[in-house]
């Protein structure tokens, strides 16, 4: 059954579970240590793998001497390209749901080294410590080739990719003549930007525990944003049937994109388990968390032209990003710049440059997190040049349609974000001149920016099982990497069937559950939530039908629309004293359980006629130490328009967390590469700085009212990405306001401030 693109009344009725700040239903498990993550499924006889990483960035392995490792008692095997079992040759066998165009990386496939820290051997031993020790005894001789890891050099050979990855469209054709308009503009800015490589670094390191059963079947506990993706990959690569591979990943310790593709520890663990016929766990080390996909290094140029009154006359946005030698990773970066503001002359250009690194990988708001800040910093610079309030400049060029396509937005309450955010922040008190607000040695700056992210929906299936005692179990093979999927889905189901939250449980992270897409791009509520709604709507209709069929019952002949579902009862709207409990309805029909399954499919027809997106306005206050260049982000207000908010408590947490990501992106995060070695050097949590508690101060989140009956049947757009987009720009703009220095190279570390 396909869910209809309308929001039924029950979602809005008083007492609805949707929109309630429900505490996480899995909270108790998480605070007691009861939630089990991929490396926490212990089983008797579990063997442990430890990965050996390449010392060079490009070349080949000439020899790999494993004798000393194998000689240690308790070492079971060392897997290398020399002794690996037969593996598929065709690229398609190695593709996963998030693979871009090209050849996916194949661990242990041959002697070729494609990037530094590439996994080149797996030691399997009776204990973790022994495997680690044995790994140190492996002697590798390489022949190194020249490598290229310098984007500034590689960009000379940059090329224009096609539609090489799902979810991303190549930039639209130019409209007008942006270069000419820029040259003729009354006021213009032209800025170059760089964005450092960032690694996802979820707190849980990537791990896979593969339980080997005597019949040869596997239970795989993997750190993944999509259990089905993991299953498909394992089955394709190791030529196993779906029946013999079950993936169970009930909890994921953060991912932010790192779990969108199967990482090599999964390959390694399955390889070892199937070869040794034993249960095996492989867990990456923190340095090895820098050995796979990452937010790509990016170089950008944004040039804007405007009339004296602030009317934009030209927008040029060019971006070059790194990709690997083997795949075309794209995240397009520039498209939002054609969508944010009304402008007749726009040229967007996006290129890739090949480097000897691992293929980049989607990271929270891929593309937008990098491209939108560049535009928004340029807008701030333009406002400064015009002597205009940066907020006024945005309002001046506000658009109600997507200029890239000419389509109207399904909803866009960005004006409300501006208005409510500015009011909460006290923006009108801003003294607009740079360096005009200080406290002692601290320069105070206020900056703002706009955020945007696409609202997407995919197909998903959910199942539901209602017991005669009024307990409901709903399931779909999605993941919960932290946003609160368990909770949101429970709320949606409870709402539709009028059940108390405690009576409803939602299951996920298991390939035995119905199909769900990868959890990413802020589309889980939209996709899986719509499926949950669809299946619960069906149960609701069934219950109504059963009640209506009870000839001597009080609800005889009534339709679902005539009923309210509340507190486990079906209640006649016309007279609430006419009611039956779910238990009574089922008992009278001799039913112990009521089961169903439903698929939700995006309502393409109406979606196609609209631009779908979430929007935000971010206001930030910084204090910059005039002597030392240190920056404190003392205050952030993020006002978000994301349609219906299923759970304001967990949604707020997502925005808070994304603002923290924005702080990291603006000020701290950078994987520093040694160009001679082609290797990320600060590959640990000591030197790759993510924000700590002391870096984070007041963050205020506002969800503005936004009604949308086109985006999906729930009217909820998802909030996983929107919170980060624009935050780095708001901070960089605040730094400019504080110091008068325009800094366009992220992260803005103190040396850049001192030397600007």
């Amino acid at each position, binding site marked *: 059954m396909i869910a209809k693109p309308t929001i039924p009344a029950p979602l809005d009725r008083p007492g609805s579970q949707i929109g309630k700040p429900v505490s996480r239903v899995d909270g108790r498990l998480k605070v007691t240590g009861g939630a089990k993550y991929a490396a926490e499924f212990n089983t008797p006889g579990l063997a442990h793998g430890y990965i050996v990483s390449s010392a060079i960035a490009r070349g080949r392995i000439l020899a790999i001497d494993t004798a000393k490792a194998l000689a240690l008692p308790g070492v079971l095997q060392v897997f290398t390209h020399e002794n690996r079992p037969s593996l598929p040759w065709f690229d398609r066998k190695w593709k996963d749901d998030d693979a871009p165009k090209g050849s996916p990386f194949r661990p242990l496939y041959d002697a070729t080294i494609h990037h530094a820290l590439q996994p080149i051997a797996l030691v399997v031993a009776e204990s973790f410590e022994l495997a680690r020790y044995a790994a140190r005894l492996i002697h590798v001789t390489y022949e190194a080739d020249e490598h290229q890891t310098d984007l500034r050099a590689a960009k000379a050979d940059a090329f224009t990719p096609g539609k090489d990855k799902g979810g991303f469209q190549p930039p639209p054709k130019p409209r007008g003549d942006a270069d000419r308009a820029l040259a003729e503009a009354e006021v213009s800015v032209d800025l170059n930007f760089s964005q450092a490589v960032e690694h996802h670094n979820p707190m849980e390191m990537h791990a896979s525990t593969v339980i080997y059963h005597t019949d040869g079947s596997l239970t795989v506990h993997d750190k993944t944003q999509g259990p089905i993706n993991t299953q498909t990959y394992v089955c394709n690569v190791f030529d196993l049937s779906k029946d013999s591979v079950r993936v169970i990943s009930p909890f994921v310790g953060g991912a932010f994109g790192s779990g969108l593709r199967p990482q090599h520890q999964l390959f390694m663990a399955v390889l070892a388990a199937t070869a040794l016929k034993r249960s095996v766990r492989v867990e990456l080390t923190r340095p090895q968390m820098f050995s796979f996909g990452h937010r790509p290094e990016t170089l950008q140029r944004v040039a804007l032209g405007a009339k004296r009154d602030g009317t934009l006359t030209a927008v040029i946005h060019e971006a070059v990003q790194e990709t690997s030698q083997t795949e075309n990773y794209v995240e397009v970066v520039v498209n939002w710049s054609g969508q944010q503001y009304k402008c007749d002359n726009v040229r967007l250009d996006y290129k890739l440059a090949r480097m000897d690194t691992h293929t980049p990988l989607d990271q929270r708001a891929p593309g937008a997190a990098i491209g939108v800040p560049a535009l928004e910093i340029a807008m701030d610079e333009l406002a400064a040049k015009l002597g205009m309030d940066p907020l006024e400049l945005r309002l001046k060029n506000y658009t109600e349609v997507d200029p890239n396509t000419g389509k109207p937005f399904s909803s866009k309450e960005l004006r409300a974000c501006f208005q409510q955010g500015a009011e909460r922040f006290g923006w009108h008190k801003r003294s607009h001149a740079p360096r005009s607000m200080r406290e002692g040695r601290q320069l105070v700056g206020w900056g703002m920016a706009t955020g945007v992210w696409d609202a997407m929906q995919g197909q998903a299936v959910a199942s539901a099982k209602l017991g005669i005692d009024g307990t409901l179990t709903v399931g779909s093979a999605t993941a919960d990497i932290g946003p609160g999927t368990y909770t949101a889905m429970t709320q949606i189901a409870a709402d539709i069937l009028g059940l108390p939250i405690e009576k409803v449980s939602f299951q996920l992270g298991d390939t035995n559950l119905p199909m769900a897409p990868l959890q990413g791009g802020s589309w889980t509520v939209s996709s899986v939530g719509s499926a949950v709604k669809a299946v619960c709507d069906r149960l609701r209709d069934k219950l109504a039908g059963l009640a209506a069929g009870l000839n001597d019952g009080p609800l005889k002949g009534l339709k679902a629309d005539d009923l309210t579902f509340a507190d486990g009862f079906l209640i006649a709207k016309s007279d609430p004293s006419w009611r039956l409990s779910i238990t009574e309805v089922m008992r009278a029909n001799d039913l112990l359980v009521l089961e169903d399954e439903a698929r939700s499919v995006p309502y393409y027809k109406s979606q196609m006629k609209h631009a779908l997106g979430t929007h935000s306005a971010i206001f930030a206050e910084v204090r910059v130490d005039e*002597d030392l260049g240190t920056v404190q982000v003392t205050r952030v207000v993020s006002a978000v328009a994301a349609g219906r908010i299923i759970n304001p408590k967990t949604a707020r947490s997502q925005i808070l967390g994304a603002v923290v990501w924005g702080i990291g992106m603006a000020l701290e995060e950078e994987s*520093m590469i040694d160009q001679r070695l082609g290797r990320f050097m600060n590959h640990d949590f000591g030197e790759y700085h993510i924000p700590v508690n002391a870096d984070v101060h007041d963050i205020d989140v506002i969800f503005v009212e936004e009604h949308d009956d086109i985006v999906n049947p729930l009217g909820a757009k998802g909030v996983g990405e929107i919170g980060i987009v624009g935050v780095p720009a708001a901070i960089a703009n605040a730094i400019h306001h504080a110091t008068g220095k325009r800094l366009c190279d992220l992260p803005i570390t103190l040396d850049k401030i001192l030397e600007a």
Partner: protein
Amino acid sequence: MRAFSYDRPDSVDAALRGVAGQPGTTTEAAVKFVAGGTNLLDLMKADVMRPERLVDISRLGLDRIEDTDDGGLRLGALARNADTAYDARVQARYPMLSKAILAGASAQLRNMATNGGNLLQRTRCYYFYDTGTPCNKREPGTGCGALTGVNRIHAILGASDSCIAVHPSDMCVALAALDAVVRVSGPKGERTIPFADFHRLPGDTPHIDSSLAADELITAIDLPVQGFADHSTYLKVRDRASYAFALVSVAAALKMDGQTIRTARLALGGVAHKPWRDPAAEAELTGKPASLETFREAARVLLRDAKGQSHNAFKIGLAERAIVRALAEAAGVEHS
């Protein structure tokens, strides 16, 4: 982590017997003491240090903080960093030291790390930690990866062509400024090492961090009576607000007579292979009025031989500003 054996002696003498006869300095030793473990076990996991035997000294006592006869304070080598920082006497008489300790690491690590171990911390140079790269400190003769590599966090003073690593400790910067004395026990009995002589510059033997012999044990750190409680501070500049190593840190301590500086101590962290003291810079302050001009001049003297690498030249200007800021704060001079 390689295979090693473990022993937990119950006395200092037994512990010393465990390391007796080892040649060289403690950095190179095959048998190592472990107490807090916060740095050694980290480095063993990274395969940077490969002791064959660990002697657990964490239960030998040596964890008291006591007044000394000359009015100073003796910090037991095995007293935890947190207990030292929060000790009422340390806070009252050596607030700069307390502040320095609390600027380092995290609450958990300070609960584990001992005072003696803090002195023996090894550098956080990326190349030192990454066995896939060259490093003269880890593998003498392989070259210095940082010299022409990623060296944003590296030394600007006292470095050599062999090594540009910096000492990571905050506590040691304050101890250097305080002229602390390290008490050690060895086969020949006790000896004391002035703090300035404890750590060394890399020269062409960067694999040796300190002058502590392989058969010696730190038993205590003595603080002289002069704690500069009235006019001192510790300023740490880093890439995030907490839980990060110093890019530059300054321990500044003054003895004032009205607005005139009678005695000055200035030690820098994050800039050299050891906590950096410079008598000339301190002499520049002595007898001068406490003013921003005086402080700037002292900073210039201290940094006269500073040399930046490809990514860390900013540290020179940063150090100058940090010195001025710290001295101003110590002296109570309005900084505007």
